[in-house]
């Protein structure tokens, strides 16, 4: 029962979604609507579960005396946004939007900006011409970094065409093979999920 029920549910949903792919794109079948509704609503509930467990892990840490201040900040942040949204909604110029645009967003992009520094230090440490592979990697990277710099045209006028050719042929050929590989992986995984062979998501191995 504990395995049979989930496996049959995934079979039914899988087969239905597969079949509905071939339905005429102008039709507005209720079944398709309903399935998509279920899919999105379950996902939203999944996020609620995540938030609940997020807060309970942090508060358990506080009660164990692990970094009460920082874990308190964590919970404070998570509760602050819903509180602000309750005060005056999601309108432009609401507290909620202000907090998002002036506190959350700048911090996020600052964390992202740290990458510029890390790219440089990783390039220095790791980008060594050790063997044929790494020499190719290094050369192509240099061509792109110089050629796509806004003043790269002054160094050599042909960069644009060369980079476009690399992108359209050798680089595309490798990426295409990777795309197809991932595509095949998804196809076999999907088949295994639908037919109940793949049960990793139930904790089985």
């Amino acid at each position, binding site marked *: 029962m504990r395995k049979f029920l989930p496996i049959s549910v995934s079979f039914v949903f899988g087969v239905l979604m597969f079949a509905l792919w071939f339905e005429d794109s102008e039709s507005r079948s209720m079944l398709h609507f309903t399935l998509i509704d279920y899919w999105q609503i379950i996902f939203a509930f999944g996020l609620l579960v995540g938030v609940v467990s997020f807060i309970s892990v942090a508060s358990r840490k506080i009660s164990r005396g692990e970094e009460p201040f920082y874990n308190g900040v964590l919970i404070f942040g998570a509760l602050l946004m819903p509180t602000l949204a309750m005060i005056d909604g999601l309108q432009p110029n609401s507290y909620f939007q202000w907090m998002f645009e002036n506190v959350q967003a700048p911090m996020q992009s600052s964390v992202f900006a740290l990458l510029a520094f890390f790219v440089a230090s*990783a390039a220095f440490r790791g980008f060594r011409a050790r063997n044929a592979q790494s020499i190719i990697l290094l050369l192509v990277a240099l061509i792109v970094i110089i050629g796509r710099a806004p003043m790269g045209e002054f160094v050599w006028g042909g960069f644009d065409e060369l980079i476009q050719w690399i992108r359209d042929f050798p680089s595309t050929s490798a990426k295409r093979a990777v795309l197809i590989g991932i595509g095949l992986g998804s196809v076999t995984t999907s088949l295994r999920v639908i037919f109940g062979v793949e049960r990793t998501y139930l904790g089985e191995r």
Partner: protein
Amino acid sequence: MDSLITILATIVAGLVTFWTARLIHRGRKYHLREIAGIKALEDAVGRAAEMGRPILYTPGYGGDIQRPTTIASMNILSVVAEKTAEYNCELIYPTHDPIIMATAQEVVRESYSRVGKIDRFNPDNIYYVSSSQFGYAAGVEGEIVRKKPASIFLLGTFEAESLILAESGAAVGAVQIAGTDSTIQLAFFLIACDYTLFGEELFAASGYLSGNEATLASVWAQDIMRILCVSFVALGILSALFFPESSWWKL
């Protein structure tokens, strides 16, 4: 017409997948070629145990539970978790996706109970950080800097956060094993990590390590389908060159 081809291809893929599964189930051996990262994976757990420091395992920001890479990563997690349970080593697993968190908790619990250490299993070590990319990145980065794990496993689908994690890991001197299908991040893992599994190598490694028949069978099935793809292209090119009017290859 288009739908017919898709349905036909699905049937072919299904037949190949189930045929290889059947062969393997009947005891036919499928020999995997050697993949360098696999041995390193095993050593990394031992290293953490020796040093008495934790292991950090994270599946990256880009994945969801349906992705083949996430599933492969779960399979490897179950093996790593067994080892950490045996060696009494702490396993930390932060993720951006509550569904992945739920699944990973089940997987690790099963692993701990398989080796009879269920009392040592702590679900709080497998936790949800944030669904926002750099919220997740900042959270995991902080964990790396403070807990100073001996080994870090970055296995799954990664996006821009990859290098933040790998660089922080390098800064605390951890052995890092990466594996992902996100091709953009591979370039960074290649230069910042000790071992890197490219794309489907991760998938093959998971089949090999977990000894899961179904996974091995699909690796084999994909090999066969790759041959089919190449044959299609070869025939298509011949017919496009010698019979320019032909158009059957336009799928």
